[in-house]
């Protein structure tokens, strides 16, 4: 098991090095893209700022707190995008064109192999903006950066990330039956937009959906609200862990079942 992880890690390093090299080749393009992404996020923050020029607080949350939640939401999103982006290609073309064949002729777990094959450097922008926004709120929000909380912060991030990865794995697996599922991943993935704001702004139905069914709220608002208020760690953080574990388990099960009914393509 350990040996296998080591091998996979070694492969992953080769791919990461390769993607970084490619990045150097397209430096100008990459930097323009990064800049574009920052502009986009700045517009969103500007929008929040305009809103808060008219109101003192949004359902009890201050401008800085909203920025903290918004910044927090970008961290797991960025991590998933950075490391697990290749699942999209399963939904868009790997299965439909029969290119998934090659993963089955290799003595490694196909899911793992698909995932490590791409390191999506584009995602670094999300991560940087997230860190910057959180850093900007330090001292302006009442987060207790005790040793325990810092530890919890870093511990909860991988789980929040796996919520994204789990949802992508489940929806990508649909392609094994329908050939293409890119558009299904797309719809579910974009629901993460709801996670950027306090759940109290939504109506009951929507709140329950993003808490219990497609639990994106656990990637950002709930854990962030624990750090902001110190309340309900069991629900706010424990929920994130449970959601991640449940989604990844379902994801792996559906994936494995899907691989069995994979029908390849061509003659």
């Amino acid at each position: 098991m350990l040996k296998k992880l080591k091998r996979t890690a070694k492969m992953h390093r080769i791919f990461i090095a390769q993607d970084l090299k490619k990045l150097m080749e397209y430096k100008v393009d990459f930097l323009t893209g990064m800049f574009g992404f920052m502009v986009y996020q700045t517009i969103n923050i500007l929008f929040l700022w305009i809103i808060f020029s008219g109101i003192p607080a949004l359902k009890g949350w201050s401008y800085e707190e909203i920025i903290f939640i918004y910044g927090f939401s970008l961290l797991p999103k960025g991590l998933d995008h950075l490391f697990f982006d290749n699942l999209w290609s399963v939904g868009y073309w790997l299965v439909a064109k029969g290119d998934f064949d090659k993963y089955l002729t290799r003595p490694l777990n196909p899911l793992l192999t698909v995932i490590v094959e791409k390191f999506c450097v584009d995602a670094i922008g999300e991560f940087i903006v997230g860190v910057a926004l959180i850093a900007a709120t330090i001292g302006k929000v009442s987060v207790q950066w005790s040793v325990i909380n810092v530890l919890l912060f870093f511990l909860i991030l991988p789980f929040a990330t796996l919520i994204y990865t789990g949802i992508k794995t489940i929806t990508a697996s649909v392609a094994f039956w329908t050939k293409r599922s890119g558009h299904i991943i797309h719809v579910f993935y974009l629901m993460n937009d709801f996670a950027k704001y306090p759940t109290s702004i939504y109506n009951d139905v929507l709140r329950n959906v993003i808490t219990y069914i497609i639990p994106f709220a656990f990637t950002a608002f709930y854990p962030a609200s624990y750090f902001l208020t110190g309340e309900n760690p069991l629900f706010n953080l424990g929920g994130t862990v449970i959601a991640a574990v449940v989604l990844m388990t379902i994801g792996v099960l559906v994936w494995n079942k899907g691989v069995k009914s994979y029908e390849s393509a061509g003659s």
Partner: protein
Amino acid sequence: MIYVDSIRKEFKKTIKQPGLLGSVKSLFKPKTEKVVAVDNISFHVPKGEILGFIGPNGAGKSTVIKMLTGILTPTAGSCTINGKNPQKNRKSYVKEIGVVFGQRTQLWWDLPLCETYAVLKEIYEVEDSAYKRKMDLLNEVLDLQDFIKSPVRTLSLGQRMRADIAASLLHSPKVLFLDEPTIGLDVVVKDNIRRAIAQINEEEQTTVVLTTHDLSDIELLSKRIVMIDKGRNVFDGTVDELKSNFGQMRELHFELANEGDLTKLEYKAKFGLTDEDVTVKNDKSKVTVRFNSDCVPVGDMLSYTLSSIHVQDISVRDADIEEIIRRLYKKEVIADA
């Protein structure tokens, strides 16, 4: 080594229903029909043999290969290779096989070739010393050094195929599956690849299963062929047996000096041939005569033609594999009736 016992593969095909309403309906309750791609095929390949697996487009060759390599699960029947079931012991099984699909690369598009091999080395857990030895051998057999530092996307089709074959051999597989390894390549590259396959087979006693459209692949590489059509096994034996059983069709091509001369040629009367054994087709002055060389020697055909009329550019070719298969069917139909 390879035992295939009456395997069968059915696919479900969704039937498109016309109109918007139809497509909404098929979204929720798709109408499907069963398509049998492979129907009750059995064969056996001993260790170290090169087996040619042939048949026309859509015969089910690739489906069989995909079942043998563990990509598809057979609907019925079983295959055992190296004592393993490709579906049940997938990970340990695929370590012992190499696979090349001619129409699709397993190399990483953006990676330089040497990096691809470094990744595969990790995937297949090849020891450093064995890896070095293997790379030296493959370099020698397949001439990789000219493009080993180039990204795969920049390789020509011939280079890519050589690279793909090398990739499939890196871990010294006991069985090598090649699906159309010479498709779309020019004659020189084809020849290079055939020699490489023969050499690897010789040196490492690798069992090879090869599908192809090109009969010369088979003639140069394998003694034994399995031929399928419409998912069924239609022939299993040596190349010589195929030729003697089904007649060796040849084609005589020439151009007439005077277009009217064609009527002067009376092959059937001269050699006493039936419609089955000789056909004459012409496009203006260009003539193709297809004949069974078991019934009449090539030399006789040539000398009769040359002595009867004036011709330009005469040549003799093997009839293609499609032709043999076509004839094979005729015989079968006759035999059944």
